[in-house]
């Protein structure tokens, strides 16, 4: 089981924003799909720090990212 960040796509798509992407400590982990205008997480690279949740929920009050438990292979 891994603790990872998960972006609620339909929520994130409401904003044209990629602030969380600019503050994740890990390279090529929290990415942005500029066609769908949504951030997405490469689960296998996420270390579960939740800094992105701080950016989206505490700083921007958008609440589009949640931390979830994920089983290997999911």
């Amino acid at each position: 089981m891994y603790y990872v960040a998960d972006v609620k796509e339909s929520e994130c798509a409401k904003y044209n924003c990629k602030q969380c992407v600019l503050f994740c400590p890990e390279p090529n982990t929290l990415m942005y799909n500029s066609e769908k205008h949504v951030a997405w997480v490469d689960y296998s690279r996420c270390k579960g720090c939740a800094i992105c949740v701080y950016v989206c929920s505490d700083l921007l009050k958008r609440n589009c990212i949640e931390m979830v438990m994920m089983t290997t292979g999911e």
Partner: protein
Amino acid sequence: MGLEYVKISPGFEKYMPKDYVDLVKYGQFGKQIDVQQIDQIKELVEEHPMCAGCYMAYFVRIFYASLPKPEDTIVLGTAGCARLALSQAAVPFIYGNYGDTNAVASGLKRALSIRFPDKIKDVVVVAGDGGLMDIGFGMTMHSWFRREKFTTIMVDNEVYGNTGGQESGMSPKGVQLKMAPKGKKFDKINAVELAKTAGCVYVAKLAPTNPKRIAKTIKRAILAARELGPTFIHVYTSCNIEYSIPTERVLADAKEREKNDFGFYEWMTDEAKEYLEEQEKKMAEAKT
């Protein structure tokens, strides 16, 4: 290295690892990227074993995205946490004995300017507070006294993070650490003033709260070092492990420190100011 060495020989693409092909196709080699577009590129730094939520790791990520000429850059590091990520990037990395970065960088930069007199070769040291201000202090200072033309970046987590929590000269007065249980008795060293006095031509201090500003500062420090002399950036990069900062509060902590004692500071000689204005004008013209 150089751009020609980075590129894949025609016909060999299918034998190269996907990560490498992506680096050449979608990476930074041979182009200037805007750090705000970091999500659109294959980054120079790969997965690494630094702790979850480590803002030193975050700084290393932004550092690589900020290099003005990654294909002609050599990075030097030393024992300490940052090298765990610095060594996982597609930029040559030299790792010497603990604290000797600025002596090695001096020799390297001089050798490169003899070997490639008409080419730009950027040399950048990225090392910890213990590496630069304690154990490597003499070598750091003397590289500045000698006006060696390379950039020194101190990733200051105010502790020996890699070895489990000893105090460093950069730990704040009074702080209790695992191996400083009675609290530190002396003041934090004023590295910025030392750098100015010792001969650096460009000195900056910042907390990692604004990627655009970090990138601008790194570019300036590297450009000024090419022509004028030593440059220094002091950056606060918290150790969430040794300072018990919950990972989701790491950016909040950086913002807090920015308000208190890590407000953005930039100083340069008149000559550096003139030179940078000229270079930045050229870069802006090249973009349009």
